[in-house]
């Protein structure tokens, strides 16, 4: 089965938690994982390799080896670069009167279905579209477009001609008479290496002078996507890409390849057989798809965690200076809660058994409540906590004075522990644990 990049990245993150800084081989390994995941998503080999080396360079530039949250940094870079590569959603350019849209692509990529979807989309935007079945080659291509257009109440060019170029010309003059403002030409499927067929589409292009030439491409396309896109681009100069059949489980990496080699935007994504199943591009969504992540939220959360890096560094400095206060303690408890089951972690930690009781999950909730009921001054300097202050905090946090006494005792213990560990490589181990 496909290992999803998202899962792989999460694994990297998991493997690294508690290990502190990255080694060069770990970086290499994660770059290999990213490359593999991209290849499994059908991103072209060269595109994938370029991408990975860019990620690696950027990671080094962001001082990945010094980072306390290396996995998060890598994930953030991958997400940023991927979204950058996918590009922004760009609207259709319909600058003529009437404007023509030429749909081109290989056989079976979904041009006819897309033509209907585009017609419905444009109509919903207040346009007056006109469909032209310009495929006289495939048996019943005309009937397919006609039946769908009739069902959706979209006007179409119903004359039958053997010559596509003439057909397009006639359709164009008809549209002027009827005052259609947008013409959608559904052309025959053709291979990107079929010289005769490419010559024909060039003639059509010259005849209709289109505002948009959209390459309709199957999201399941493999490594050949680069050749297909490149050849259509060379022959016609496309203006954008429509990615079809994204309602399946194809990861759609081909889109990345096509975008990269042509530099042309991905304008729409087909997400089903229903006639309204056409979406404008959402770069984040496509990026999540290629990465194999359910949504990009995870990615963003990971990225946000990287921001906490500064906090971690501040914390480590405090430990080294022996100035840990209850404020830091609270911050660490909050972070710890995110890591998950603590027992196993604490066992690996020198002196962890002493802390274990304090870090007990239920106990942690109580500890958090207590510290939150303190004033900032009290948190920074627990020694000022006299009995009246303790009573106030107990009633504020729904605990007892004994609970507060216990916490303060444990906190003192932890401070003592930290001092003992100082100079033995202890603080580094502790801070990586607290990350």
């Amino acid at each position, binding site marked *: 089965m*496909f290992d999803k990049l998202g899962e792989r990245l999460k694994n990297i993150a998991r493997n690294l938690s508690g290990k502190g800084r990255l080694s060069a081989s770990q970086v290499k390994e994660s770059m290999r994982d990213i490359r*593999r995941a991209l*290849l*499994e*998503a*059908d991103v*072209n*080999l060269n595109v994938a390799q370029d991408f990975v080396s860019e990620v690696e360079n950027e990671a080094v530039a962001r001082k990945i080896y010094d980072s306390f949250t290396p996995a998060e940094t890598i994930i953030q870079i991958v997400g940023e670069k991927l979204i950058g590569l996918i590009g922004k959603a760009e609207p259709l350019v319909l600058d003529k009167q009437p404007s023509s849209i030429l749909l081109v692509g*290989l*056989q*079976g*990529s*979904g041009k*006819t279905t897309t033509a209907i979807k585009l017609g419905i989309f444009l109509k919903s935007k207040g346009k007056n579209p006109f469909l032209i079945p310009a495929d006289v*080659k*495939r*048996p*019943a*291509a*005309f*009937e*397919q*477009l006609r*039946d*769908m257009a009739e*069902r959706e109440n979209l006007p179409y060019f119903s004359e039958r001609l053997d010559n596509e170029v003439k057909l397009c010309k006639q359709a164009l003059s008809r549209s002027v008479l009827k005052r259609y403002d947008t013409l959608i030409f559904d052309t025959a499927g053709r*291979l*990107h*290496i079929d010289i005769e067929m490419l010559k024909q589409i060039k003639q059509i292009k010259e005849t209709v002078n289109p505002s948009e030439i959209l390459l309709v491409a*199957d999201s*399941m*396309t*493999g*490594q*050949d*996507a680069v*050749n*297909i896109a490149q050849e259509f681009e060379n022959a016609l100069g496309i203006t954008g890409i429509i990615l079809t*059949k994204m*309602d*399946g*489980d*194809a*990861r759609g*990496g*081909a889109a990345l390849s096509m975008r990269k080699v042509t530099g042309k935007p991905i304008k729409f994504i087909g997400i089903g*057989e229903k006639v309204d199943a056409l979406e404008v591009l959402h770069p984040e969504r496509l990026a999540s798809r290629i990465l194999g992540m359910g949504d990009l939220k995870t990615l963003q959360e990971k990225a946000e965690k990287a921001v906490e890096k500064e906090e971690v560094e501040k914390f480590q400095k405090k430990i080294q200076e022996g100035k840990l206060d209850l404020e830091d303690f609270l911050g660490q408890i909050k972070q710890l809660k995110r890591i998950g089951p603590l027992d196993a972690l604490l066992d690996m930690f020198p002196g962890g058994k002493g802390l274990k009781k304090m870090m007990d999950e239920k106990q942690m909730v109580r500890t958090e409540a207590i510290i939150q009921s303190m004033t900032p001054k009290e948190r920074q300097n627990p020694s000022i906590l006299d009995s009246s202050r303790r009573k106030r905090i107990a009633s504020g946090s729904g605990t007892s004075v004994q609970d507060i006494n216990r916490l303060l005792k444990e906190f003192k213990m932890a401070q003592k522990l930290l001092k003992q560990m100082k100079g033995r490589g202890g603080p580094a181990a502790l801070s990586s644990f607290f990350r």
Partner: protein
Amino acid sequence: MNLRKTLQKTRDNFSKKLRNLFGKRDPKALVDFENLLIESDFGVDTAVSLVGTLEKTTPENYLSSLKKELINILNVSVGGNDYTKPIVELYVGVNGVGKTTTIGKRGWTLHGEGKKVLLASGDTFRTGAVEQLSKWGERINSDVVQSGYGADPAAVCFDAVDAAVAREIDYVLIDTAGRLHTRNDLMEEMKKIKKVLKRKREDLPQETILVVDGTTGQNALQQAKQFNEAIGITGIALTKLDGTAKGGIVVSIVNDIGIPVKYIGIGEEKGDLIPFSAEDFVTAILEE
């Protein structure tokens, strides 16, 4: 069109590079060989495993052992063909892979062999599908069993078998609607078609052919797995090999699932569907 000529582009891109690489007689060339396989849609796993095979031999034997290994993988023994008339072939696959065209071409071949062919349009969903199949019916002088848009495809298949028995038909070729393997409802519909055919006669359909687009990447493996799990595939028709795509994923499919490739589509003309032979195919790809 013949196989050699059609695969010209593939050979230009694949065989020439391969010969260049192997010509170096250097084990280091295997890194580039792995990349070449990936660029040909073999997928990372299969590429790594083929490199592993070549690592066991010496550089001068790379080409011959690659040929041997590929033929070995692609040569899946097929059971006996002593079928009882009518022989029912069910064609399935995702959208736009070329099911109807493949059926048309297959019908053309059988027609040329003097067989009586009946086409059945089990695609009651896509508009124009019935017309498309009917046009093929005219070309190859076959009747087409059909029903209206939105009709139950299983019922069409049921009628087709009845008609075939009554008219002493040799082959019934059933077209089905394109369906993504992730669509549960449509996969269930397909199971029903098979069940109805089985109820008609236990040995029907004798062939269930998964049509795979040769330009498809790694997703083709998922398609094959899911379709096979749902209804049991007996063979693969690999289409659109007249472009620059190498169809390398088919090696992974055959290797993983053990379903043989039966036909390859190498063009849009009536005669452009040829029976697959591992030996011929591998030779055509690897030769100069």
